[in-house]
């Protein structure tokens, strides 16, 4: 299934969907499939300043830990409490209910540096070939 076109992507398999100056961030379907059952998320608290492609937090599955990178710079304003209590939401609905954090964008133009849905789909197609 092609990745949703209403958002942009990082090479590390995060997505960001921008509405006005607010970016909602999550991980892609490919990422959740690779990770397996997600059991725990370590995310920063609201008020934290984040920078594009800096480490945002960690995602744990039963047998692995993965670093999470921020697609955008700005102030983290909201954390999805639902996924804290039920990490399986990220597996079940990575693009909707499984969103992770919201960031108030410092520089909306930054988003242009990220991959489009088509570019991201190419990236994972290549990864799956090797």
């Amino acid at each position, binding site marked *: 299934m092609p990745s949703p076109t209403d958002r942009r992507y990082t090479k590390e398999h995060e997505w960001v969907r921008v509405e006005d100056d607010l970016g909602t961030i999550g991980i892609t379907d490919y990422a959740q499939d690779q990770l397996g059952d997600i059991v725990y998320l370590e995310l920063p608290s609201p008020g934290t300043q984040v920078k594009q492609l800096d480490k945002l937090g960690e995602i*744990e599955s*039963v047998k692995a*830990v993965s670093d999470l990178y921020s697609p955008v710079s700005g102030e983290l304003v909201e954390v999805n409490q639902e996924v804290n209590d039920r990490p399986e939401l990220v597996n079940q609905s990575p693009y909707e209910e499984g969103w992770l954090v919201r960031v108030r964008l410092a520089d909306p133009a930054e988003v242009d540096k990220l991959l489009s849905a088509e570019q991201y789909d190419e990236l994972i197609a290549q990864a799956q070939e090797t």
Partner: protein
Amino acid sequence: MTFPYISNTAADRRAMLAAIGVASAEELFVDIPSEFRIAELDLPAALSEPELVRELTALAERNRPVDSMPCFLGGGAYRHFIPSVVGEVIGRSEYATAYTPYQAEISQGTLQTAFEFQSMVCELTAMDVANAGMYDGASALAEACLMAAGVTGRRRIALLSTVHPHCQAVVRTYAFGRDLAVDVVAPDGLALSEEHACLAVQQPDFFGHLLPEVEALARAVHEAGALFIVSVDPISLGLFRPPGEYGADVVVGDGQSLGSPLDFGGPYLGLFACRQQYLRQMPGRIVGRTSDAQGRTGYVLTLQTREQHIRRERATSNICTSQQLVALAATVYLAAMGKEGLRQVAELCYHKAHYAARRIAQLPGYSLAFDGLFFKEFVVRCPRPPSEVNRALLERGIVGGLDVSQYVENGLLLCVTEMNSREEIDRLVDSLAEIGGSE
């Protein structure tokens, strides 16, 4: 020579080498550069089983086991009663020769008993969670201090001076690794700064005494933003209030007293329990309860992402193999003693130690070094150097106490447990009287 632990015969080897496609076993070692190959070692010749038994029995006989005499030695290793069921259970090779339970479906014996162990440690210490065990009480304390440093982001560790000197030493060794400073503080005049990650205390302390005002101490530590770590004697928790009730954030200790022999110092057992909020920073293995697809209850290693095999350099600790069989011994011990038994053991230690202390304090030349509440150990000031007293006791067929004269002038740390009969105690007192009376 044929060895009982190698199954292959020469015929087997020939068949296997043929299947591999080589003429001799030597060809399988070609990757070892010739300049490093050796064929000889200066080791004693191989022994058959009867010869081995003879040799080691002779070695064992060159030692004097403490049961051969009344013994009043403590100081971190204790002579407590080991019920026969403990040896019966840990002697089962299904427990003793099993691997670490990474494959849960065929390791439920190890996993369920580890869950039992965790539960019992939590009950004993009144803490929220416990791991499946660490190497010993000293390294458990060290790991607790490292955890506190990680949690608070601070770089100084405070230890009360009455923590066992060996434990203090181990904390220093581990602190050296992470470039943390260790401050040893006296019980009076305690002042924690905001650089301190924790204060660790021992309860009862090295000299056998319980700290007065622990709640106030816990409050002061928390006000400084640090963690309160308490290292306990688990037997004492059969009688005394557990640290979970007076503000401990982490409880550690050594479980040798719970069903393991003295064994000349090891293997022992590190206990580690903490508050729920520190669960993900806790080192060591943790077993959790879950179920299979059929709804049957089972146990698995869980929260493994804290550990070295997954998180590698970011692991909570490098610990891998720990002390599972010793933890099993402790589990069987606690289940065998039960709530009444453990309390009885603790009370016996308490009453016998106090009887001994009272009688010794009445001897001319002897006095108790400290006031205050003690459990099963106490320090006596002797009329002569403790090394002389101990030598004289040994001549009378008694193992004395621990010479602590470097901390207390002519100080002798005596330990009395449920294993010391009244006759033995009276004999000790009479001997001390004689020794004190002579020039």
